[in-house]
């Protein structure tokens, strides 16, 4: 049985990462506690992770989510047994961190109380509220109503241009499940576009 397990878990002698710029060895060095190697990996991947975080949780929380995900990755890196999967592994950590941010956020908002605290109200109420709502506002509001997984799926697939199957693997769900969740999420966003805005 030992052979079976060795075959199962043994890393390949040569990998695409090894052949392309020594990333494989950087991951290995970082796994052994080399902070400089981790810094090099981070330099390469942090911008993409931040972009993904901004898409999922918004710009205000993106930096914190990215920072926490990277630090979490540093801690867990010794346990990464397939160094080829470093990049998707990192992405999964980031998505999980974003899920936490969203759960935290939803818990802090009492049911029925929306967070409209985006600045002081003008003395003059101005035109009717509905006339001041932009398409961006509508889509932002609709996006806020989506579940963490729907937000992550939309961001992975449309913002990061990952395939549906790769997005599904990042979230640990089936491809079919991802397709149906994407579909319902897109429908929710489409519905946010009013006829007036559309015209």
């Amino acid at each position, binding site marked *: *049985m*030992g052979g*079976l*397990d*060795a075959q*199962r*878990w*043994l890393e390949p002698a040569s990998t695409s990462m090894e052949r392309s710029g020594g990333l494989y060895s950087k991951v290995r060095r970082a*796994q052994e506690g080399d902070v400089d190697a*981790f*810094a090099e990996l*981070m*330099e390469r991947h*942090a*911008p993409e992770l931040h972009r*993904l975080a901004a898409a999922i949780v*918004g*710009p205000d929380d993106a*930096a914190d989510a*990215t*920072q926490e995900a*990277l630090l*979490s*990755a*540093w*801690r*867990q890196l*010794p*346990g*990464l*047994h*397939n160094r*080829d*999967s470093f990049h*998707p592994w990192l992405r*999964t*950590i980031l998505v*999980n*961190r974003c899920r*936490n941010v969203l*759960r*935290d956020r*939803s*818990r*802090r908002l009492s*049911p029925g109380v929306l967070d409209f605290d985006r600045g002081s109200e003008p003395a003059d109420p101005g035109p009717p509220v509905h006339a001041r709502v932009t*398409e961006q506002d509508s*889509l932002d509001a609709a996006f806020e109503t989506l579940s963490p997984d729907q937000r992550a799926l939309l*961001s992975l697939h*449309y*913002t990061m241009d990952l395939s549906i199957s790769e997005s599904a*693997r*990042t979230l*640990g769900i*089936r491809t*079919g499940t991802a397709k149906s969740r994407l579909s319902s999420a897109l429908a929710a*966003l*489409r519905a946010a*576009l009013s006829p007036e805005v*559309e015209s």
Partner: protein
Amino acid sequence: MTGRRNNRDDRVIDYLRQRGEAPMPARLPAEVIDAAARTPQDNDGQRRATWVTPLLAAAAVMLAVVVTLGGLALVDPQVGDDPTPEPSPSSTVPTMSPSVTPRPSASPDPDPSASASPEATDEPTGVEPGQVLVTVTDDLVVRSAPSTASDSEIYSVRLQPGDLLRVTEGPVEGSGFTWYRGAVLDSSAPDGVREGWVAAADQDGTAWLAAVPGEGDGWRLLGESTSGEPYTVGVATSSDDLPALWADAGISEDLPAIDFQREVVVRYTHAVSGTCPDINLEGIGVDPLDDIVYSVVTLPSSPLFEGQNCTSDARPHAFVVAVDRDQLPDGEVHFRLQRGFIACVDCGRESEEVSVVLP
């Protein structure tokens, strides 16, 4: 109408593409590196990585750790592992028990003002020393004393869904929580085991720890064997599927009689060390949020159970159970070897989960 819909799609997709356009703060990389330089790495995962490498004999001790507490020892990017000052739920993963019901996910941080979940789970009752409880939330902290006072030290270990607590004392009330003292695996502890106090539920009664119900509580053990392929799961939803599942488990006895209208049959084949072959199936857990049905196993020989060092040879141990259909989530169900999140991609662990759409 079609053109109008496409136009909307284009605008939605444009919106999604621009959502990621936020400049990354220049200070971010430096802050992460500073923090990393001060943060020790978690070597639990390394244990598994070295264990599977034949050249590294040091992995011998680790096998029991890996198999016993898969959620803690596997290479899992957890939903969060930041230090949190209090016990903190973010998802509830009840084990199969009539007293445990699903609830929506919650926050990783304590928030006394947050509203109670409408479907709060019940905390475990009637727990005796020696019993094993399973963690059903994220980032649950372990303390030196049964209170949240400043003199109750918070250990660095964080319990994740599926992590086990072997109870040695309790329950004890303190700071509005019910606490159990027990042993958990902790790589930062000198012998790999941390003894501490863990809160069983939040102040609304939402469970953070759950009892692992024994046989007869929604599932029954049909058979077990020491053959088959480790790290695999099989499911039979009809009598047509059962012979192959039974053969994969390597059980020599006759096929059991199953009412597939009422039950499904699941095979969970774990790996154990040849020198520490004891493994107990504690229960079958159900995570209704993610539709995961998983086995909860313990190894009496692991450090958690004051055992011995184990060699790194992996031997299969299969459990075949019948699970009541009315205990299972509707629709697509993911039968997973253990609760720990399968984080890696294309790393050979896909066989640890089988997904079935139940009629």
